[in-house]
């Protein structure tokens, strides 16, 4: 589904990603862990197409298509979803309006008929129940005045509405209390299928208790330095990242 080959990227002139290689197949859950500043969020943003990040080398294909040939909105419509670490507020734009536009843009892209207002509301009710989002939130402006936890739940709700092929969750667990973490994780687990894939970007093993990954990768100084199964996360939790640094001979 996603094939990253020797990817280099910089932000504000500084090299952050230095040769990432990663392949994600349908049905898989990958966790990307690593210390602060290792490039985890950069990788997420580069894949989604944020203009602050400049790709200097390498290739990324998504469903066989060159991702760098696609504008960010086209990548989204191709099925790439980023759950933001810091979702922005858009004052005055109602969640309903925002999501209806987004859903119908996706449908148009797939040559499907746009949803009527009634059908859209029905879909929204179903997905709200699924991810247990407070029904009041969708009556408000996009993320405006939402608590940290509400913002993250709202991201998962949007993911449920858009049904992406590949979901990248950028530190979705940060700032969540234990109940919110459970709700968010349940949402992600429910949306998982053999046809889609998930990349979890996280600092902590905690999230992986709830969303069990098939692969864990350690990102360090812009490269994936270690990949293994879910047991790697536990090892990291026990030994800390210093263990990896030592292993690398630093």
């Amino acid at each position, binding site marked *: 589904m996603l094939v990253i080959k020797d990817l280099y990227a910089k932000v504000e002139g500084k090299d952050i990603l230095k040769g990432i290689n990663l392949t994600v197949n349908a049905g898989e859950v990958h966790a990307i862990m690593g210390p602060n500043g290792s490039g985890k969020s950069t990788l997420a943003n580069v894949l*989604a*197409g*944020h*203009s*602050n990040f400049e790709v200097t080398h390498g290739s990324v294909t998504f469903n066989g298509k060159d991702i760098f040939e696609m*504008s*960010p*909105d086209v990548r*989204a*419509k191709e099925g790439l*979803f*980023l759950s*933001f670490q810091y*979702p*922005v507020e*858009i*004052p*005055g*734009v109602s969640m*309903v*309006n*925002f*999501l*209806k*536009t*987004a859903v*119908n*843009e*996706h449908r148009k*892209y797939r040559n499907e008929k*746009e949803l*009527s*207002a*009634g059908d*859209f509301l029905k879909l929204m009710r179903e997905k709200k129940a699924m991810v247990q989002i407070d029904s009041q939130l969708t009556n408000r*402006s*996009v993320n405006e005045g939402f608590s940290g936890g509400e913002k993250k739940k709202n991201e998962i709700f*949007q993911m449920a509405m*858009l049904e992406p092929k590949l979901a990248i969750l950028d530190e979705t667990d940060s700032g969540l209390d234990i109940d919110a973490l459970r709700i968010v994780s349940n949402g992600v687990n429910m949306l998982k299928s053999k046809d889609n894939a998930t990349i979890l970007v996280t600092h902590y093993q905690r999230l992986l208790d709830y969303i069990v990954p098939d692969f864990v990768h350690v990102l360090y100084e812009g490269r994936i330095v270690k990949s293994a199964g879910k047991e790697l996360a536990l090892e990291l939790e026990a030994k800390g990242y210093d263990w990896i640094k030592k292993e690398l001979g630093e």
Partner: protein
Amino acid sequence: MSVLFVTGINSSYFEIIMEDQNKLLNEVTQRDYRFGFVSDIETDTIVKGLNEEVIRIISAKKDEPEFMLEFRLKAYRRWLTMKMPEWAQLKVPEIDYQDIIFYAAPTQQAKYESLNEVDPELLRTFEKLGIPLEEQKMLSGVAVDAVIDSVSVKTTFKETLAERGIIFCSFSEAVKHHPDLIQKYLGMAVPINDNYFAALNSAVFSDGSFVYIPKGTRCPMELSTYFRINAQNTGQFERTLIIADDDSYVSYLEGCTAPMRDENQLHAAVVEIIALNRAEVKYSTVQNWYPGDKNGKGGIFNFVTKRGICMGIASKIFWNQVETGSAITWKYPSCVLMGDNSVAEFNSVALTNNYQQADTGTKMIHIGKNTKSTIVSKGISAGHSSNSYRGLVRVAAKAENARNYSQCDSLLLGDSCGAHTFPYIEVGNSSSIIEHEATTSKIGEDQIFYCNQRGISTEDAIGMIVNGYAREVINKLPMEFAVEAQKLLQISLEGSVG
């Protein structure tokens, strides 16, 4: 403005907004000014230039009573002694008043029994605008007094209104049939010597609309007039007078489109509103005159004087406007709160792009006790444009417990535009409470990226963000106007972010 009214009024509000949002998104690809066409209607014009003789000709052509001619001449003589105001944050090219035709009327001035009698070219113009009159009648339930150039061509729904004693007609007709009302109220809110452009308008105005709502009457429909500048090189001087008698209510809609052309066109309208005891007048404008091309060539010069007087106890006047057009906008819809407990509001969205300049705002003059005014101004600047808010809040010595709340927000797109705020506050009574809040923000790249990531294109994202920013004001507009306004904001910003 364009006049594409949504026709399915009986569907739920939500559905219309949603459906229309999508239509809106589809239409974004249109690049050129949509209503830039000149219709070829026979026009009866007089020679260029301005002098007393011209004013006498205008008055004679309109078959006006003596008091009107006197009003015009007095205004003209006053105008000659006045200078063009230069305090606004505007660069205005010199205007040669001797190069302007001050009167133009479509040649068919007869009253039509049916649309078949109307010049087909004129009907086609309406079609291009999306408002064939018959369709308007049937579908929208909005009475339309359509003005092409300066003379009313057709008035609809008059009968329904007449049953309730409501007068809604062209200004010329009002002068003929209701001279007493005209004589009593004309120039009351905007005296002839009020300002340079008001004096000019008072001297040469060609036509406009007149509304009278009798005591205790609620006008059953939104009243609406479309102004359209049509004949080449013709200054447009509209005059509107709205009188709401005791305990009455009316909502009035004004919207404009203009054909594309190169020469600058002067427009100096005057709108006067008189609200008597407990009367409520809501005046909504969506203005989309030709703003000039991307390089600042052409476009309308819009120097408008709009003022309402809350004459009675607990009168209410609301100005709601969405301004996206004109090369230059000089406009301050204002209220004089004379009666005790009267209420006034000014809600405005002014958008400038390319080389447009706008200096717009309001004046709230508190004279009566317990008077209350609210100002919400949302400026949006893009391209190389300049967008200024200029507002005055004055509390007279006797205005016990007057209250004003002002909120002035500016939104900037890009680095080449300017936004300015000039609030003036004069308080003569210590029991009054005045609040002023102002913000300036830039449209965030992160907001756009967030929308992108959900599958929304950059252009649509900007439209959405700007509409969200302006929503507070747009929500004050009557529903069909709100839909129109959303579209306009989006279309007006096309290509403004690279």
